C-alpha cells in the first residue's frame, strides 16, 4: 500500500516559487533520497510535509487519507495540523535539541505532553510515564546512546546530538521520517555514526525521506531518488537511473560538481 502520496505540491515565498508542482509517492518501508543543488527547494519540500510551511497548491495523502488539500474550503485548524504533523517526523540539519533537558528527557518530553492530553492519563499516570520512558530508553539504546541518557546536549558530540535528535523523532512513531541533510553540520569523522543509524532504520523498514549531499550514501540506501531543480522535481527514479545512467544534462552537471567537491 502507498504510505505517502504527494500530488502537485507548490510553495511560494512572495511570488518566488520555491517548490513547483512536485508529485511523488512512497510505499511503506521505502527510502526516498532527495538531491539537488543549493536553493533547489529540498528543505522547503520537507518543511511543507511537516507543515512548517503551508503549501499554496497540492495534496498530501497519507495511508489513503488526504491530510492536506490546498483547495480545501474549510482550511485546517491548529489542532488538525498538529495531529497531521504526527504522521511525519523531521530531523533537522542543526539538531535543535532542547538544551535544558537531558538526552532522555529530550526524547520523552513530546510523548509525555501528548499522553497528558489523553483522557485516561490521570488514572494510569505512573504506568503511562514508565511506558514512555521505557520506550525512550529502548530507542536511545538502538541508536547506541544507552550510556548517554543523562547527558545534556552540550555534553554530547555533534554525532551523538544528531542521534538523540533521531531518537526524539522516532519516539513518536511517525509513519514517515524526514531528514534534512542530517550530517552536513558534522565533522567528517562523525558522519559515519549517524549514517549507520539511518541505515539500520532502513533495514528495519522505516519509511524515510532523506535530503542529502552524500551521493554514495544516497545510492546505497534509497529505493527512489528525486532530483530537484529550481523547485521542480526534474527527475525521479531508481538510484541507478538517476545517479548512474541519467542522460539529463543538469543532473550530470550536478553530479560532476559534487564529485569535484568530494575529491578535494
Amino acid at each position, binding site marked *: 500500500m502507498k504510505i505517502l502520496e504527494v500530488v502537485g505540491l507548490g510553495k511560494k515565498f512572495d511570488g518566488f516559487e520555491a517548490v513547483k508542482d512536485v508529485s511523488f509517492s512512497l510505499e511503506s518501508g521505502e527510502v526516498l533520497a532527495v538531491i539537488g543543488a543549493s536553493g533547489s527547494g529540498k528543505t522547503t519540500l520537507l518543511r511543507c510535509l*511537516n*507543515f*512548517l510551511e503551508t503549501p499554496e497548491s497540492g495534496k498530501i495523502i497519507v495511508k489513503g487519507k488526504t491530510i492536506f488539500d490546498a483547495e480545501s474550503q474549510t482550511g485546517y485548524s*491548529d489542532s488538525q495540523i*498538529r*495531529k497531521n*504533523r*504526527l504522521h*511525519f*517526523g*523531521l530531523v*533537522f540539519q*542543526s*539538531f*535543535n*535539541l*532542547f*538544551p*535544558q533537558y537531558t538526552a532522555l528527557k529530550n526524547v520523552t*518530553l*513530546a510523548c509525555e*505532553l*501528548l499522553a497528558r492530553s489523553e483522557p485516561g492519563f490521570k488514572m494510569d499516570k505512573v504506568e503511562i510515564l514508565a511506558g514512555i520512558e521505557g520506550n525512550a530508553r529502548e530507542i536511545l539504546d538502538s541508536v547506541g546512546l544507552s550510556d548517554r541518557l543523562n547527558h*545534556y*546536549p*552540550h555534553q554530547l558530540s555533534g554525532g551523538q546530538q544528531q542521534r538523540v535528535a533521531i531518537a*526524539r*523523532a522516532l519516539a*513518536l512513531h511517525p509513519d514517515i521520517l524526514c531528514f534534512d541533510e542530517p550530517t552536513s553540520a558534522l565533522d567528517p569523522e562523525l558522519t559515519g555514526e549517524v549514517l549507520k543509524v539511518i541505515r539500520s532504520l532502513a533495514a528495519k523498514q522505516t519509511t524515510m525521506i532523506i535530503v542529502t549531499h552524500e551521493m554514495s550514501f544516497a545510492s546505497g540506501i534509497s529505493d527512489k531518488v528525486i532530483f530537484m531543480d529550481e523547485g521542480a522535481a526534474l527527475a525521479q527514479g531508481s538510484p541507478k537511473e538517476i545517479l548512474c545512467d541519467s542522460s539529463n544534462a543538469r543532473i550530470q552537471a550536478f553530479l560532476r560538481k559534487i564529485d569535484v567537491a568530494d575529491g578535494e
Partner: protein
Amino acid sequence: MLLDVTKNLLEGFAVSCQIFGGTLVFGIPLGLLVAFGSMNRWAPFKRTVKAEGRFASVLRSFKPIAFIVRVFIWIIRGTPLLLQLIVIFFGAAILIGHAVFDRVTAAIVTFSINYACYFAVIFRGGIEAVPKGQFEAGLVLGMTRAQIFTKVTLLQLIKRIMPAMSNEIITLVKDTALARIIGVTEIIYYGYRYVTAQALIWPLFYTGVFFLAFVGALTLLFAYIERKLDYIKIL
C-alpha cells in the same frame, strides 16, 4: 534613640517593600502580556489590500495591535515615572471627583505599568533571541504553542534575560522612593524627617544601609539563580 529610628525606618521600609513586591507580582505578568502584544503579527490588510505601490504595501504590513502596544511603551518609557505617579493618583481623583486608590495602591499600579514596559522590551529581546529551530522542533513534535513556550522557550528565556532583569529589579528597589511625591511614607520619607525636624544626619546613612542590605540580598539571589541555570548551555 537608635531603637526609635530603627522602628521608624522599618515602618517605611515595609511600605517600600510593598511597592517593590507588588510591582514584581503585577509588573512581570503584565510585561509578558505587553511583550506578546508588541510582537503580535495580526495584519488585517495583508490579504484584503490588493493595490500596488508604497502606501498599499505599508498598509499590508501594518500590524495594529503591535503598533498600539509599541506606542504605549513609547509613552510610558518616554515620560518620567514621577509624572506618571502624579497623573495616576491626582489625575484619576480629579477626573472621578474623589480618591480612587489609596496612595500605596496608586504607587503599585503606576510602578507596575511603568516597569511592565521595561520588562516587556527585555522579554521581547529574550524571546526573539531563542533560536527559531527550538520552536520548530517543538512544532514538529506535535506540541502546542503554549507547551512550546512553557516547556522549551521559557527556561532559555529566563536564562538569557537574567542579567538585564537583575538590573531593572535593582533599579526598582531605589525607584520606590519616588512614591513619596504622592505622599507615600516610604523609608526615605522617615530618614528625611530626621534631617528636617531634628537636624540629624546619621539616620540618612542608616537609611542607605537598608537599601544596601536589600540590594545585597537580591544580588546574592540573582547569583544563585544564574548558578542554578548554569547547566543550560545555549547551543
